[in-house]
């Protein structure tokens, strides 16, 4: 009986040994790639030069066609990240493609050579010779941050082909640019019609630029809880530019109105004796590392910065816009413009993304210098529809702002069915 037991043990051991050996041999081709890498030892960048990006896409497609592989093709919205070691010459450490929200496909080792071929590999390696943006994604502790990625993208850009909301619309042509419309400026503490101007321009994932014109949208989308109805801002003609690069955001805008203001419908509300508009405005903030995923099931992010603006005081005299030094209360201003500056603080929370695409709830609180406090709750019943509720409390009672206001919007996101 002991011999039987011994033989049984021996046979079992051999079987297990063979099974484990096989598995370990088989596993060699599927070793888990290194996801979080040390920024001191590696450089990572996204391939932004379109022809090179297409070459990499083609190379991966070819490899999928030629070889039995589990690799997925590169999708149009994917970013492609190349990583090289600071010590290695002429070879890439990793190639990643995908999106932060859905995660990345990682290629490394010999497979990169097999996929790209020598010339393309060397071309991609020499990052200083083509358009790229340095990327911190491979160095972050979390490889997949869908909620944070949503927050970073939706404030400046959009992942859908067309995004139409009452205060902001983007029609994308491709992954690199789009046409932009904005009504008011939420980051300045004056969303919708509160700013007195609207914007038209072009936008990319990293910058936007365009013109500012008086708000021609005569839409009442809320209720003034307290304050005086005609204490509003007027518009003007000007320009704006903003960037969102890495964790840094900056914005600059100017407006001027020294000519005919008859095209500004806000004059009907404010009257032409007391014209006030923002003649320049600036904001710079940093996305702080105080970001937590799985905060109440979602993600939380803080932004802190500095903002400034100047309100120009004008009046219409004999059909011409002239400087004004007297306020509505009859007291004199020191100058024909009042300058404000202060700290900017914003906190965003999004609930866990549904299907890794949209959150059911987005809550935001923001202090814009000494201008206003904003609280905003956006409810997304579906991926395509969002309903934002915005509460504004103006910190200072002036000729152009007062009291508290509650505003409602609507946001629609559409995908191109042909894609």
């Amino acid at each position, binding site marked *: 009986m002991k011999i039987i037991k011994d*033989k049984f043990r021996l046979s079992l051991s051999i079987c297990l040994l063979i099974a484990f050996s096989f598995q370990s041999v088989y596993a060699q081709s599927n070793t888990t790639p290194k996801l979080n890498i040390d920024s001191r030892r590696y450089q990572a960048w996204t391939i932004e030069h379109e022809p090179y990006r297409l070459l990499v896409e083609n190379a991966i497609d070819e490899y999928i*066609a*030629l070889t039995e592989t589990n690799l997925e093709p590169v999708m149009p919205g994917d970013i492609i990240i190349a990583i090289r070691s600071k010590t290695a010459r002429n070879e890439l450490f990793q190639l990643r493609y995908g999106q932060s929200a859905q995660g990345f496909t990682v290629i490394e080792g010999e497979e990169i050579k097999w996929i790209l*071929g*020598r010339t393309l590999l060397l071309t991609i390696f020499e990052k200083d010779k083509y358009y790229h943006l*340095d990327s911190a994604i491979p160095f972050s502790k979390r490889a997949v941050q869908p909620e944070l990625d949503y927050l970073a993208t939706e404030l400046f850009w959009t992942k859908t082909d067309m995004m139409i909301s009452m205060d902001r619309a983007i029609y994308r042509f491709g992954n690199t640019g789009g046409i932009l419309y904005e009504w008011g400026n939420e980051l300045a503490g004056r969303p919708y019609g509160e700013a007195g101007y609207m914007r038209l321009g072009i936008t990319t994932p990293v910058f936007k*630029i365009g013109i500012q014109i008086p708000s021609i949208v005569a839409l009442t989308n809320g209720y003034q809880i307290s304050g005086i109805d005609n204490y509003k801002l007027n518009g003007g003609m000007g320009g704006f530019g903003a960037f969102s690069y890495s964790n840094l955001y900056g914005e600059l*805008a100017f407006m*001027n109105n020294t000519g005919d203001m008859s095209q500004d419908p806000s004059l009907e509300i404010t009257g032409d004796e007391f014209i006030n508009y923002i003649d*320049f405005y600036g904001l710079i903030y940093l996305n702080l590392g105080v970001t937590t995923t799985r905060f109440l099931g979602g993600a939380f992010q803080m932004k802190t910065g500095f903002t400034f603006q100047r309100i120009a005081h004008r009046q219409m005299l004999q059909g011409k816009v002239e400087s004004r030094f007297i306020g509505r209360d009859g007291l004199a201003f020191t100058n024909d413009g009042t300058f404000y500056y202060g700290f900017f603080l914003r906190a965003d929370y999004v609930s866990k993304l549904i299907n890794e695409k949209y959150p059911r709830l987005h809550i935001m609180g923001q202090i814009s210098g000494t201008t206003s406090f904003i609280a905003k709750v956006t409810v997304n019943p579906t991926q395509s529809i969002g309903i934002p509720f915005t509460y504004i409390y103006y910190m200072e009672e002036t000729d152009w702002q007062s009291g508290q206001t509650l505003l409602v919007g609507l946001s629609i996101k559409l995908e191109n069915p042909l894609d």
Partner: protein
Amino acid sequence: MNNIPSTVSSTSTIFNQSKKIIFRLLILIIWALPILIFPQDYTELYETMDDWIYDKDEDIFLEPGQIVEWGVIDREQSRYFLKKYLDVLTDMDPMANLQIQETDEMRVKAIKKENGGTVLYSVNAISRAGALNELSKKVLVNMSVKDIRRILERKYEWDNINNLDTGFITGDIINVFQERNYKQCRDAFWWTHRRVDFGFFPRIILRVTPRYAINLEFGREEIGYPVNASRTLNMGLTTEVFNLYLTVPSAYPGISNGHPLDGAYGGGLKFDSPRLGGSISFQDLDFVSKGDITFFDPDHIIYNDYSGQLYWSFTNRIGKPEDEPGFGVPLGSLRIIIGTTLFSLVYGYQDDDDEFIVLDRSQKLLAIQGLLRAEYTTDMDEKFINKWRFMSQMNMGLTGLGSVQFSVTRSIIQWLSVSASGAYFWSGVDFLDARLGPEDTYRWEPGWYFNPSISIYF
């Protein structure tokens, strides 16, 4: 009684044998497990050797996207394959004329199948003398599937083939690696690919990190007032994408004959990408207390209170390699920028209390200008320097106000370059001046400017 042990013994033997069979089956199952779990898709696609090799007579209308071609760099792979080919060839025809050698360079062409997978279209061998020989399909079909698949799967070192090199590839393929991207040219003008670019003085750029640089630049080149044509200094932060700067009044010494733009305090933001770019800026004399700015002519102050610009650009290859005979510019990249600028000029004077009094502003038509700019830089040499840089820009308004400017930079050695820049305004602007009379005007003549300078790099 004797039956009992024999029964036990026979039962034990049967039991042992059953166990052995079960164990052997178990081992077999374990070995076969990967095959059962991971079925070979290719076995469904390729049943015979003909399925591995494309019949060229079958379809002559191949779409360019269906064809994949490459050169085998891994010499072990090509040697192995060609040896196998020659073995089969000599088996089939011992008297065959062997034009193909094991040491030849191999080039492979495959066709993507509509239902997935690929088939071999052709294999070419290039001898050391450069002769191109196509491997016979009759021989290839007699080779083992394993060898064909090995070469087709491309799990070895390979490279793209330049269409012009081979001549045997169908379709119009553009060698995309020779296409110029804007990076080198852009880097030379937008910021620098060096750590420090210290110019005396039109500009100073310090790349604090690879992603961020601090820059100081005299003048307003983008709107047509470079270096000493505008009494401003822009100081800011530059990245790959944007340049955020503060503007302060300043004066830059240079050779000139004209009335430059005055400077005020302000700021701006510039963007640049391979196709689109632009800028906005503003300046305001109200930012400072009275008398803080020294104007060029306090009786006639002209400054730019805001500007906006939007442009589109493309980059081309230009020139010829140095070793090629004949005349021509050295091989480099030429970037063409076409855009429009919207800007405003304010005219006024400083009164006895040092207050700035506005007299007139530029008209709307004057405020719109066309922008045409060309940037050229030679390719970086082995020392990572662009030997030549050249820029020319024209800003032209609808009312005639306009300027042309240029800059030339020559790198002398790895860390030193000399440059010259200049600007010429072919027209002036008339501003209403109430001091002279209700309809009288003051004519502002910006004139011309010239600046030699040197730069050192680290």
